[in-house]
């Protein structure tokens, strides 16, 4: 008998022992034993991150470098995104696409200067991403996995003040910028690569360190009065309130960037009429879908080229609507499906994201979700559910 989720088969992050010491409940996630919550519980952890500073272990995520004079141009052939134009010191969101325009993974990339891109990909996708990147552009640049690196995130309105105490000057970074820094208090001192970004909608930082530095750094951060450890459960509720996609739920190879309402991630230079138009996997389909939305002067949508879109939804009754629930019109016709949903701790109402037929995608449109056979009325709404509070200077 196969036992794929047997805890013995799971990989451990460098903070495994610390999680156990803190009383975390560990669950399998992306092949790792990860803390889903600590004794404080999901709701308390979620609210702490929205009001103070939360420390997340996200070392399951994949970290890699693409190095060489041709790295940016090569990486650009895999994504509908402006890689070449990203200035040194800046970070950007990217999407690896397959040849049908489906999303292989979403990621963050950072221009380190010196012909080097630092890339963070999803844990569950990292092996496949590496193989894909190596196969497609391995001859044009050096692909360097960084399996000996851990990744921590410090998120929340007090994250910057807390980290500045341990790394003076770090407050100079604005959202989606970063660099190499030292973090310490005189006794503990670690070299880190920091970006001001995250997955909660709050101001905060992601901190890449060598594996052996992860626990000393985590203990130093947890010793700060504002900081508490936060599990994957709250990470999920925080990102959903922020309207951010979870790969595997809200986006995957069956969804394109346009269907996923990620048009903002595709800069003009890669779109029809741009200086570096197309030239990425699935470009014909993705650009046609973009143009179905944007080029008709009369404002009509081409429902054949683009059939559905990701939207935000709020339930009009206090019933959680979870992923997998079918969405229907009030006439009872199936029009889509929920891909993420829960009762939001900060928004204090049931929220969801899902895909609906284009005719139902306008904010304010009423639909119904089928929850255990019973209809629950919902309204399409703009994202995010909780306003972003990124620090833009």
């Amino acid at each position, binding site marked *: 008998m196969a036992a794929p989720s047997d805890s013995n088969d799971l990989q451990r992050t460098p903070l495994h022992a610390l999680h156990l010491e803190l009383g975390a409940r560990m669950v399998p996630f992306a092949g790792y034993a990860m803390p889903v919550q600590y004794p404080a*519980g*999901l709701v308390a952890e979620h609210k702490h991150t929205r009001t103070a500073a939360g420390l997340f272990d996200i070392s399951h995520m994949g970290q890699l470098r693409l190095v060489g004079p041709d790295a940016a141009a090569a990486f650009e052939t895999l994504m509908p995104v402006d890689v070449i134009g990203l200035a040194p010191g800046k970070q950007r969101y990217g999407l690896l696409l397959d040849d049908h325009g489906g999303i292989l993974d979403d990621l963050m990339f950072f221009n380190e200067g010196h012909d080097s891109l630092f890339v963070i990909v999803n844990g569950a996708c990292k092996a496949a991403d590496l193989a894909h990147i190596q196969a497609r552009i391995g001859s044009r640049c050096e692909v360097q996995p960084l399996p000996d690196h851990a990744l921590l995130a410090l998120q929340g309105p007090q994250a910057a003040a807390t980290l500045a105490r341990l790394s003076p000057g770090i407050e100079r970074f604005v959202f989606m910028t970063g660099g190499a820094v030292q973090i310490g208090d005189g006794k503990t001192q670690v070299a880190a690569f920091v970006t001001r970004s995250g997955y909660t909608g709050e101001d905060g930082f992601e901190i890449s360190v060598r594996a052996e530095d992860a626990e000393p750094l985590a203990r130093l951060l947890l010793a700060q009065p504002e900081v508490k450890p936060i599990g994957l459960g709250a990470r999920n*509720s925080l990102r959903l309130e922020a309207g951010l996609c979870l790969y595997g739920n809200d986006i995957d190879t069956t969804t394109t960037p346009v269907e996923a309402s990620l048009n903002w991630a595709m800069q003009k230079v890669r779109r029809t009429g741009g200086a570096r138009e197309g030239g990425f996997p699935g470009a014909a389909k993705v650009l046609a879908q973009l143009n179905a939305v944007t080029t008709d002067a009369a404002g009509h949508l081409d429902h054949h080229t683009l059939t559905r879109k990701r939207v935000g939804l709020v339930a009009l009754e206090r019933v959680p609507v979870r992923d997998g629930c079918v969405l229907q019109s009030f006439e009872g016709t199936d029009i889509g499906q929920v891909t993420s949903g829960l*009762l939001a701790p900060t928004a204090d109402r049931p929220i969801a994201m899902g895909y609906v037929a284009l005719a139902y995608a306008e904010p304010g449109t009423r639909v119904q979700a089928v929850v*255990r056979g019973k209809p629950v009325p919902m309204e399409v709404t703009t994202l995010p559910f909780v306003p972003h509070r990124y620090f833009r200077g």
Partner: protein
Amino acid sequence: MTIKYTKDHEWVQLDGSDAATVGITVHAQDALGDVVFVDLPEVGKTFAQGDVAGVVESVKAAADVFMPVSGEVTEVNEALRADPSLANSAPQAEGWFFKVRLSEPAQLDALLDATAYDKFSAES
């Protein structure tokens, strides 16, 4: 006062010869985390043992509430519906789910006693 337990982490308290109160155990609410929603059965509806009679949800997960014994639902806990956190704060008191009139009281004999349940939940 007889209280029995199921392997689905529910408790059944016998309130008379054929009446019982049902709820989820301390272990169940701990595993779920902060309970934010309960769906309770209709009063007057009859269920067989093992039928899904309700739902309990935390932010992170949803779990079915099974009928631990066959019978008719006679009352549901409206206070729990209004404040689902009672399932966390008082799972075996104010956080009860529903009351049932037993159609086969002998089914209780096959359920776990406290000692057997503690052993079961420690191992699961």
